[in-house]
């Protein structure tokens, strides 16, 4: 047995590079030695019952896969990014920083005083507007009261909603008045808005 082992080891050491499969075969517990008579896989275990257990097993596997799929599908859809809330990388570019000249004391004073003057002006304008609106509403309320005294029918007709009014459209004021019989040139544009789908 010792001699056999030595020869074996010599064979093995000389052939290590090419016979790696032989070495792995040797280390597997199914094969006791290369030189032993070649036998098939030991048949000590039970024969496989392919009729009952397997379909059940396959079903179990399928169910497990389906559950995993459902869990994956339950992930909420990716939110559409709001483009207004994302500051573009352009804004963080350092080459774009503007050189700001330093303001003199007089300039800062002038600005502060102008801002205060403006807030006072706007406040008085707002007060005047609110008073006007209040006056108009009061006039309307009194008119409706008088109408009610006069005739209930007319009052009800006046109170009822006006279906023809909305949708109401009106061109607001621009800087210059519209030119009569003006032909505007064709405006061609490429629409590059990004459309997201969930």
């Amino acid at each position, binding site marked *: 047995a010792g001699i056999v082992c030595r020869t074996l080891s010599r064979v093995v050491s000389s052939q290590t590079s090419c016979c790696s499969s032989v070495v792995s075969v040797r280390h597997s517990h199914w094969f006791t030695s290369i030189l032993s008579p070649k036998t098939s896989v030991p048949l000590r275990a039970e024969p496989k019952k392919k009729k009952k257990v397997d379909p059940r097993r396959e079903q179990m596997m399928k169910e497990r896969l389906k559950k995993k799929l459902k869990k994956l599908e339950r992930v909420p859809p990716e939110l559409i990014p709001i483009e207004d809330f994302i500051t573009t990388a352009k804004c963080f570019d350092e080459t774009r920083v503007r050189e700001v000249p330093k303001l003199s004391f007089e300039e800062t004073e002038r600005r502060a005083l102008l801002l205060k003057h403006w807030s006072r002006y706007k406040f008085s304008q707002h007060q005047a507007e609110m008073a*006007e609106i209040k006056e108009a509403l009061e*006039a*309307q309320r009194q008119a409706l009261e*008088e109408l*009610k005294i006069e*005739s209930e*029918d*007319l009052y009800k007709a006046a109170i009822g909603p006006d279906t023809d*009014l909305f949708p109401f459209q009106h061109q607001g004021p621009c800087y210059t008045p519209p030119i009569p019989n003006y032909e505007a040139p064709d405006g061609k544009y490429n629409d590059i808005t990004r459309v997201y789908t969930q």
Partner: protein
Amino acid sequence: MAAPFRCIYRPLWRVITGSGRLTVGMRNISFTENHFSATNHKTASVGSPWTLHGAVCLQRLPVISQDRNPIEEEFSGLMQQMELERSLLSDHELRLLEDAARMSRKQEEDYDSDEEEDYGDKEIVTAQDLEDAWEQKLKQFHPAQRSNGDKLDVSSSERCLADSLVLLIKQDVGSQKVWLLPQVQWKAGETLRQTAERALAHLPDVKATFLGNAPCGFYKYKYPKDIQKEGSVGAKVFFFKAVMCSPNHLPLEKNSFAWVKKDELKDFLTPEYLKQVNRFIMSL
């Protein structure tokens, strides 16, 4: 059901026996409403001493933005300055700077065109050239004039384009010709808004949108004593607001109507009338 029923019946009796004027506040309950309105209608047409008129306050809204006050001018200048200071350089400005740097490099003696990146043999359009081209294009567009000056008289609707104008009409009231908002007497069977629409129909070629069914103001006046015999003490005029849609309006009979700003109203209307009308005509 019994309790509310009872308390409703009391005011009904009061209506049938009493005058047309009501001082009782009523709650709207569907059963009694129709009954109540029927009786009230009868009393209105019989007992009320006021004849009803519907009038229209037709406004031509401003076509042009108003000129700025001195404070507004100053403030807008300040805001533009501050925004400029706080902003970053735009693409166009960066391009201008690059072009300026390239030009200065060209002027130097040891200029080597091969060192330039992205130069090639193409002709370069500088940002300054673009700006000049844009200015030329702007000059080709001639906008309409903002102010027409004082050429237009009171009867044209193209007058003060920055303010809202109200239409006034010279009408016979009694024996006198008086400047009024267009008004017409109410006929039975129509709502007051339809009366106002009829008042507008007398003026040709005016498309107006009435702003709602409710009147915006009222004015009552008593007839002079010689007309009072017909059983009506005076008249109540209900005003309805309308906005003119189309600007084109053919002027007819120059002396009979006028487009007037709010501050010019006092030159045309009588003081009492003006006081009521000023309440709902808004100067923006």
